[in-house]
């Protein structure tokens, strides 16, 4: 069994070292009218390439741009659609991070790709494969405020409207060179009865993905109850947060997996370094039950919840423990 190392989306865009503060300074200067939008974009690109370089240096084989250009995971792509605007701030799940609530004023319509250029830039600046990121239509719908009467109290209709719009973004990211496109749907863990809706939306993406592989990713909750349903999703990869319960591991032991799994066992929400014994024990239990020839090993969620130095260390720890595990005679 091969274990491929990947990042789970975001990466801290700012750190405590002076050179790691460039983006923060650039945003401040931009807000004060002291630099142009072009200057800000140049800084974003520079930070993006630095973040990619840092992941590669830490041993990561499927990198992301760290989502360093995103305002937040919920509103960034949503408000690029016609008839969706950014609203007030709200707490992002159980974190101390605030996102802007998308406000749906009418049918969400895709006009042009927001992310394709970013992917193309990452591909050009990476010696490793690049993963594109998208917060899924179901989660976006659940986290939006709906003013448009046609979508009021109609999560299925709004989800599919977002899905149709986002499918164009999937196609654009695939054409721009994304090897994998990760679709984050953490909200389905809170509303497990809607898992069929997520499947329906992903089916639209599957038609547009071209050569890219799709990953369905959940975090911030226990996916144990939905694990069986996830195995039927029209995606190649299921990426899960294993920091919430033992039940998920037991389910995999029982059911196995015919899909590539993203093993989010490195806790991206705590600075404590994960213990070798726990990781090895986890891999010993899960890997024998996976029938694909590789799995991804990754943090439990985006790394932006950690300080930059700890995020870097987590990735280095992943690399080190994978090496030690494989050379200790694990799967």
């Amino acid at each position, binding site marked *: 069994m091969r274990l491929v190392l990947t990042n789970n989306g975001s990466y801290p865009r700012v750190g*405590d070292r002076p050179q790691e503060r460039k983006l*923060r300074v650039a*945003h401040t200067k931009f807000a004060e009218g002291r630099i142009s939008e072009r200057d800000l974009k140049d800084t974003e690109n520079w930070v993006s390439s630095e973040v990619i370089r840092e992941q590669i240096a830490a041993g990561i084989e499927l990198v992301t741009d760290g989502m360093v250009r995103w305002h937040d995971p919920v509103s960034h792509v949503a408000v690029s659609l016609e008839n969706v605007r950014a609203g*007030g701030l*709200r707490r992002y799940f*159980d974190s101390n991070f605030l996102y802007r609530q998308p406000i749906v004023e009418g049918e969400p319509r895709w006009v042009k790709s927001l992310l394709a250029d970013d992917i193309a830039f990452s591909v050009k600046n990476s010696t490793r494969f690049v993963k594109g990121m998208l917060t899924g239509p179901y989660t976006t719908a659940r986290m939006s*405020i709906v003013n448009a009467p046609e979508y009021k109290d109609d999560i299925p209709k709004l989800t599919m409207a977002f899905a149709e719009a986002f499918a164009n973004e999937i196609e654009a990211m695939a054409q721009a060179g994304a090897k994998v496109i990760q679709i984050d749907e953490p909200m389905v863990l809170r509303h497990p009865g809607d898992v069929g809706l997520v499947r329906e939306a992903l089916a639209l993406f599957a038609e547009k993905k071209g050569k890219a592989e799709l990953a369905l990713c959940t975090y911030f909750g226990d996916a144990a109850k939905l694990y069986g349903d996830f195995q039927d999703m029209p995606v190649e990869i299921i990426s899960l947060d294993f920091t919430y319960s033992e039940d998920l591991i037991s389910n995999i032991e029982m059911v196995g997996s015919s899909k590539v799994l993203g093993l989010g066992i490195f806790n991206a929400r*705590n600075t*404590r370094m994960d213990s070798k014994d726990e990781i090895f024990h986890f891999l010993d239990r899960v890997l024998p039950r996976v029938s694909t020839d590789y799995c991804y090993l990754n943090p439990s969620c985006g790394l*932006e919840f950690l300080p930059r130095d700890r995020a870097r260390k987590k990735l280095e720890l992943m690399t080190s423990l994978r090496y030690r595990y494989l050379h200790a005679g694990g799967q």
Partner: protein
Amino acid sequence: MSREHLTKLGITLPEFPVTSVGSFPKPSYLKKAREDYSAQRIDQEALEREEERATQFWIEWQDQAGVDVLVDGEMYRGDMVTFFAETMRGFEIGGLIRSNGNRYYHKPIITSAVEWVQPITIEWFRFAQSLTEKPVKGMLTGPYTVMDWSFNEHYENRRDTTIGLAKEIRKEVEALVEAGCRIIQIDEPAISVRPEEMPLAVEAMQICTEGLDAYFISHVCVGSFDQIYPQLLELPVHNLDLELSNPDVDIMPLLQANVPQKDISCGLVDVHSREVESQDEVDARLSKALEIIPQDRIWVDPDCGLKTRTVEEAQAKLEVVVAAAHARRESPSE
């Protein structure tokens, strides 16, 4: 209003007492002093002089503006958790974490058992209170929020961390009471995100407040109120401070369904917007609150701390709240 309780504490307040949630923007001279201090161009004493100057500025301004229960404005704090972590034992100050947009904070890391070793806010409370005859609120961050907004490398689980913190934060509450503080706000903005942990937050607040002779307020914001209300009413405080102006968080239907028996501090201006509301807008929000909450249980304030606004915006926003409250006092039937 828990007027009887306030009276016992020796505090008489007018109808619609005006307060603010805690933080005010730092004047430019203090921002510069903080930068100079970070760059080691000035010493701690010089920084503290500027912090005192800014505190005095805000106390005097609130006094003159007609605010009834004052805050020190938190001129000496960076953010609401790190400030406490810097003084309590058991914490390390971690690297920068983004909280939204281009805002960052240093998230503390709990590396050993937390311990209150010395008063944290008492000298600032004494200083602020010495500048005014009006009551100044003691301002603390609650144990659940400190737990949730810190990394934990020491305790076994979230419960142990919260209870450990509550026992230590209580010592600061006791020190505030001992220093003569009678209105104490213990903020718990984090409790709105994990509804299943509401009983833990309630238990922790109980540890902080039980048997202490003060009027307690707790501020909660930007969360899923629909998930935690009406359980939120179990929080053992006299006054819940809620955001009623955030255009995207409509709490009113929840209050309507379960009318709170506590005092409610009604946030009447949106702190995330630069636009200063008109008195009519603010009055309309107050009228909406009055449809549900009896007049004698209503306090008025901004939705949240005003530190993200400019000094001028913060003043203008608080002035319009004062104006609305004063107008109501003069024409209560309108």
